């Protein structure tokens, strides 16, 4: 039968989480709660040098004096930070020489996610540094990368092996006291990825990390640091899925990108944390701080596809410090059921002739709320700065909301700022047109949504774009057939 809008809405609301499974792997988990002892214990557990421990403690002290931000257009029960365990690592800790040595159950989990390492190895040269419950368990393609002088490893390893780089850059873009969640992350970050591309080197493959939360009640605090030295290039992919869970899980990551003169970093994310069930129960709280700094002639491009999480609070930003620097932000944010997303970007123009582009596509269904929040700031010294922003919203049904909060602060009159915004609804006539051509309603919605998101999907690396497209379909399709 054909669908009325009412039925369509119902269907969208009944979509269950596809990757709702949980792997039972023995973990080494800390007691709940947070104090200086826990911070020190985390640092000790990871055999970190003293400067790192001190850095964490400094962050912790800042955090204690800070308040959780309330300005975002989201409502949720604030997490009890003393009820969270701050460290969890899979028990079988030693690094593996080959995949055969990896816990088969863990491999099975990866297979369910469709990211079997075997496949990954064969696929278009993707090196994967997998973060599973905070500790990297497998790293591939390290050798090829090492030949070019590229460092791609876990941040814990980098702290030990490349302290001079970590010490110089960690917190240089997102300082410890930047915001409540960044401070928390700085104090307790468990692991994450580190990447350094030497001068003039073009990274020959897409670097890729998959994050997952797997231990019940464990907060996930990832720390990522990407440094592209002068004239280098790297494309970095980050993708996440998380198992179905009843209680809320906190995720507060920090990502720092440093693009030195003439360097380019492309950072792509596909995020699919558990969004909660159709009643809005459970789901991940995703409070992420992502920021990059561009020196002279450098370029940073953020591309994100956000389909998961119960609450998303995320603003991948660019500080265009050097002259002629370029910042880009391409985003698709999908919310369904009771999901809430407040996401966008900040483009801070400091250098002359700096340019930024913002393309944001928000798709809301069910009873969800989807907000774009963006700041374009042009400093007094930033001659001839340019920005183009486009924010499009697509609504499904009558119970969801789309909001746009664009902030523009210009202190130099040579600046050129353009902002375009549209809001549209999937029309019954569009659905019927597709139906008449033999395309059922579910597929029709996927087609329309993919068309709407095309400008952003096109910015993703090929293999990621296919995955992202699937994810969009999964996130919005009903349970037809």
């Amino acid at each position, binding site marked *: 039968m054909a669908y009325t809008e009412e039925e369509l809405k119902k269907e969208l609301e009944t979509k269950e989480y596809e990757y709702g499974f949980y792997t039972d792997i023995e973990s080494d988990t800390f007691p709940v709660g947070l104090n200086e002892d826990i911070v020190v214990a985390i640092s000790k557990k990871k055999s970190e040098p003293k400067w790192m421990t001190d850095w964490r403690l400094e962050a912790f002290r800042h955090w204690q004096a800070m308040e959780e931000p309330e300005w975002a257009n989201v409502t949720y029960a604030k997490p009890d930070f003393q009820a969270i365990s701050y460290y969890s690592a899979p028990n079988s800790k030693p690094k593996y020489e080959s995949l055969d040595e990896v816990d088969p159950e863990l491999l099975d989990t990866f297979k369910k996610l469709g990211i079997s390492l075997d496949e990954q190895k064969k696929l278009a040269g993707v090196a994967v540094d997998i973060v599973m419950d905070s500790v990297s368990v497998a790293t591939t393609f390290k050798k090829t990368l090492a030949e070019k002088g590229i460092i791609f490893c876990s941040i814990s390893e980098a702290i030990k092996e490349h302290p001079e780089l970590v010490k110089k850059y960690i917190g240089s873009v997102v300082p410890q006291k930047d915001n409540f969640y960044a401070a928390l992350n700085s104090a307790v970050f468990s692991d994450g990825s580190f990447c350094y591309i030497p001068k003039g080197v073009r990274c020959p493959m897409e670097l890729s990390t998959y994050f997952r939360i797997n231990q019940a009640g464990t907060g996930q605090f990832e720390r990522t640091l990407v440094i592209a030295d002068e004239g280098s290039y790297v494309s970095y992919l980050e993708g996440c899925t998380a198992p179905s869970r009843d209680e809320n899980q906190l995720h507060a990551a920090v990502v720092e990108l440093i693009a030195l003169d003439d360097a380019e970093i492309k950072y792509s994310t596909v995020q699919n944390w558990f969004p909660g069930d159709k009643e809005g129960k459970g789901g991940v709280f995703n409070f992420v701080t992502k920021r990059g700094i561009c020196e002279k002639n450098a370029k940073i491009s953020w591309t994100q596809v956000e389909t998961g999480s119960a609450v998303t609070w995320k603003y991948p930003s660019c500080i265009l410090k050097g002259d002629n620097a370029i910042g880009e932000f391409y985003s698709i944010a999908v919310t369904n059921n009771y999901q809430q997303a407040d996401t966008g970007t900040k483009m801070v123009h400091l250098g002359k002739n700096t340019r930024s582009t913002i393309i944001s596509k928000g798709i809301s269904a069910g009873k969800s709320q989807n907000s774009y929040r963006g700041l374009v700031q042009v400093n007094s010294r930033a001659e001839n700065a340019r920005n183009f922003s486009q924010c499009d919203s697509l609504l499904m049904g009558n119970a969801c909301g789309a909001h746009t909060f664009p902030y523009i602060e210009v202190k130099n009159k040579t600046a050129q700022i353009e902002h375009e915004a549209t809001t549209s609804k999937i029309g019954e006539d569009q659905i019927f047109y597709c139906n008449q051509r033999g395309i059922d309603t579910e597929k029709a919605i996927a087609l329309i949504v993919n*068309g709407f998101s*095309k400008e952003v999907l096109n910015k993703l690396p090929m293999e990621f774009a296919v995955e992202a497209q699937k994810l969009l379909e999964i996130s919005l399709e009903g349970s037809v057939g």
Partner: protein
Amino acid sequence: MLKINELHARVEEKDILKGINLEVNAGEVHAIMGPNGSGKSTLASVIAGKEEFEVTKGSVVLNGEDLEDAAPEERAHKGVFLSFQYPVEIPGVSVTNFMKTAINESRKARGLKDMPANEMLKLIREKSEMLEIDRRFLSRSLNEGFSGGEKKRNEIFQMAMLEPKLAILDETDSGLDIDALRIVANGVNKLRSKDNAIIVITHYQRLLEYIVPDFVHVLHNGKIVKSGGKELALELEEKGYDWIKNEAVV
């Protein structure tokens, strides 16, 4: 092929079709003419299964099968095609991608695998050449920024790609200049065969000079009030719809 029996349909509590009887056989072209508001487009929508129209009485039978419970996409899979009077825009979805999806969905319904890419390309090339469609056109977003003529040509291109058993052309001539009309009509004529049937819905006789029908039916006030051969269209053109209206009253 198509048998419509005593069909009554309403929309928003308003009766539009009040007892339509029509039989269309394979290989035939039927023209349905009538003044504005006579129910022509409603008839097309009801055959295609548009939900907002409620069938209160009668039936639509396609190849012996009552379509009452068939969803619009199921009707499409059974070979019903509607060329829309006002084709909708779907931004970001190319004509090619849309056709690929439509063809593969119909194949899936028949238990077939997706059409291999090379076969799809061949089909696209063949049909676009037949209809003199520039292939650059096919990479544009569906109907977005298309001229009236392009939209209608695109409908006929889709018809060619999907090879329906029963094609209903709803006011395909509206908004077309004479050149565009000729191109579209030529396309339709190339698609005529002994295995398919076409229903041409039009207000004017003009289109029927190019797509010559076997039968002409005049719809008035939700009923077919007169049927005849192609000469009926000419008679209508000459005497106007008032002739029919008056006759219906008598």
